[in-house]
């Protein structure tokens, strides 16, 4: 090693690394877009399977400019919203009950853990029978999907609450309701937010898949319609919107969850 000045060479600065990261990201995006356009123009694939970028762009503009898109978006959003409220509250209640009571946990939590990772969409025929072909069955799918992640997170969160806090509540003879609202929920904010985040994710999937299977309204319906009419630019546009919205909402909740934590600290 050098017998020269014994000081460590400066590490690359934060700013220069950030710039290089940005450059790499831009390069990747541009490369993908360029490859896409080349493939689209080449005529190698069947005509609209990979539409040129301008066609997709045009379809996006057309989509976002028409009222019927927003009407369908509203339907889907409403279905998902109701599903998350019902499924989330039910999941929360179940999770808190299981987390609070060792006996109940040993009896039923395995059910949650094993039923959780199953393809809920296969329950759709049953939902159709029970709730009809309208929004009801879609909401039901969302509820079933959303319930499990929330319940599992809540149960785990309950068990991690510092036992001291629970004893404090009991020593003041708080009612169950008071315990839940003043002690359990605030102490579990992080796991519950995470649970809802996951629950929202799967509720979106469940509801949309149900719409693709059997519906005449909603974004899922629009996607299948585009498929059926082989309007590929429109399908791509719809999928782009769906993905941007899902990822966006997920990121938003993630940020809200973190903000909350800083507020507590």
């Amino acid at each position, binding site marked *: *090693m*050098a*017998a*020269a*000045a*014994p*000081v*460590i*060479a*400066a590490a690359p600065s934060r700013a220069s690394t950030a710039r290089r990261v940005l450059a790499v990201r831009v390069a990747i995006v541009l490369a993908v877009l360029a490859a896409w356009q080349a493939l689209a123009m080449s005529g190698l694939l069947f005509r609209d399977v990979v539409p040129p970028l301008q066609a997709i762009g045009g379809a996006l503009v057309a989509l976002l400019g028409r009222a019927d898109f927003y009407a369908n978006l509203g339907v889907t959003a409403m279905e998902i919203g109701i599903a998350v409220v019902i499924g989330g509250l039910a999941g929360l209640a179940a999770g808190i009950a299981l987390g609070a009571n060792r006996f109940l946990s040993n009896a039923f939590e395995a059910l949650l853990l094993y039923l959780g990772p199953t393809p809920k969409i296969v329950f759709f025929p049953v939902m159709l029978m029970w709730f009809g072909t309208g929004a009801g069955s879609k909401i039901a799918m969302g509820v079933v999907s959303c319930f499990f992640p929330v319940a599992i997170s809540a149960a785990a969160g309950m068990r991690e609450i510092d036992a001291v806090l629970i004893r404090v509540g009991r020593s003041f003879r708080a009612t169950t309701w008071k315990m839940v609202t003043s002690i359990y929920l605030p102490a579990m904010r992080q796991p519950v937010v995470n649970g809802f985040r996951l629950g929202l994710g799967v509720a979106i999937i469940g509801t949309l898949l149900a719409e693709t299977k059997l519906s005449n309204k909603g974004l899922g319906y629009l996607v299948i319609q585009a498929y059926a009419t082989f309007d590929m630019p429109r399908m791509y546009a719809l999928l782009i919107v769906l993905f941007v919205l899902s990822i966006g909402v997920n990121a938003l909740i993630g940020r809200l969850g973190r903000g909350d934590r800083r507020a507590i600290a």
Partner: protein
Amino acid sequence: MPADALLKVEGIVKRFATADGGITAVDDVSFDVMPGEFVSLIGPSGCGKSTLFNIIGGLVGDYAGRVTVAGTRVTGTHPSIGMVFQEESTFPWRTVLDNVAFPLEIAGLGKIERAERAAHFVKLVGLSGFERRYPSELSGGMRQRVAIARTLASEPRILLMDEPFAALDEQTRLLLGDKVLQIQQELKQTTLLITHNLTEAVQLSDRVLVMTYRPGKIKRIVDVGLPHPRDAEVVSSDAFGHTVAQIWSDLREEASRGIEDDEARVRAGGKP
């Protein structure tokens, strides 16, 4: 003709750049280690001894001065320098035997020869019978023995150990220290031990180098001069106690400086 030193450390100076200027971890440290010697380097926390360990072992460059092992300059890690680290360093996915055989595997030895040689070192550290076990099945002390056996299996010219017994309880320390000394005497292994434990340093070494607090320098070199084997009788002798006391008086001053420094920094709003 005087025997030549196996390890020559000359004028090591190491600075680190920090947010508020820089600190000199090690300032002009020089010493020699003779072949077959057991030398301990002792100092308070923050005296730069781990930095020295990394420099001598070749893990860290960018310093002034030079380190020479058997006449060759150290410019990076080298199999002739064996290192035993303070933290858990056994490979959890390999059995005891496979862990110890690791350097032999790297050296390209055949399977049967590897197993034989590794078994020899496993036996040396007193872990016969545990060859097929995994580290997670062993205690902390046993795992450190595996790490030591592994390093010895590479038959290094000089053995460097950075507080290998730090995570162990007192009794295990003493027993393990005994064992290591036994092995060292048997193999005539040149050893440099970094430690903060006074009794350990005196019990195991031929010489003790006492370091100052940061910037680290060699404050004093103490010749232990006690007979081998260092059994219970030797450890409880007057000479032993005297040597320990002598080193403590040096060390205490440095340790106090370290504590004062920490307090000053916390008061100024920084971290210790």
